[in-house]
């Protein structure tokens, strides 16, 4: 561990109503976090759910690579902890969803990725006949 990461996080009170779809509430430190979520969001004008439909492979949003530019700049960083504590009195969150992370504590490397394909299906407009 690098000495700069020696700050302690103090949270007196956390209230979270919902944690869903592989989300994590982590109390404590970590070294590596990698999150990934994919979603096909379908909105239909009327209730209709067909179950096992659609495939991630059919949409380019889930295929295209995301180029990460390497961090190449040569920076020498020096950190002095004049007060090695991060204090938060109260955290109130309604929802944490889709591979999201809520962490009380420090980490080293974090990498998160989300891909969403949004589709809307509307009923034909029968009033518009000419």
């Amino acid at each position, binding site marked *: 561990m690098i000495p700069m990461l020696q700050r302690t996080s103090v949270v007196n009170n956390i209230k979270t109503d919902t944690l869903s779809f592989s989300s994590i509430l982590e109390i404590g430190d970590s070294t590596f976090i990698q999150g990934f979520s994919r979603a096909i969001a379908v909105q239909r004008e009327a209730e209709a759910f067909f179950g096992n439909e659609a495939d991630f*492979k059919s949409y380019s949003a889930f295929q295209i690579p*995301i180029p990460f530019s390497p961090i190449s700049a040569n920076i020498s960083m020096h*950190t002095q902890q004049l007060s090695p504590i991060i204090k*938060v009195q109260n955290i*109130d969150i309604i*929802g944490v969803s889709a591979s999201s992370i*809520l*962490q009380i504590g420090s980490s*080293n490397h974090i990498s998160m990725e989300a891909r969403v394909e949004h589709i809307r299906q509307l009923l034909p407009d029968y009033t518009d006949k000419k």
Partner: protein
Amino acid sequence: MNFHVYNRDLCVGSIRIIGVASSSLLMVGDTQTIQLASVFDTPPESLIIGPFVPLTPK
């Protein structure tokens, strides 16, 4: 490049959030690197007007 950081008192009263979603991150702490990537696609073909049919994979 020389980058000098002095961390003095950090004290937050209250954090109120509606939602943390789609591989987002809320952290009370330190980290060395963060990389975030997101793709959101709503192409013209994604607005389908007509009788409801299941999404057909190509």
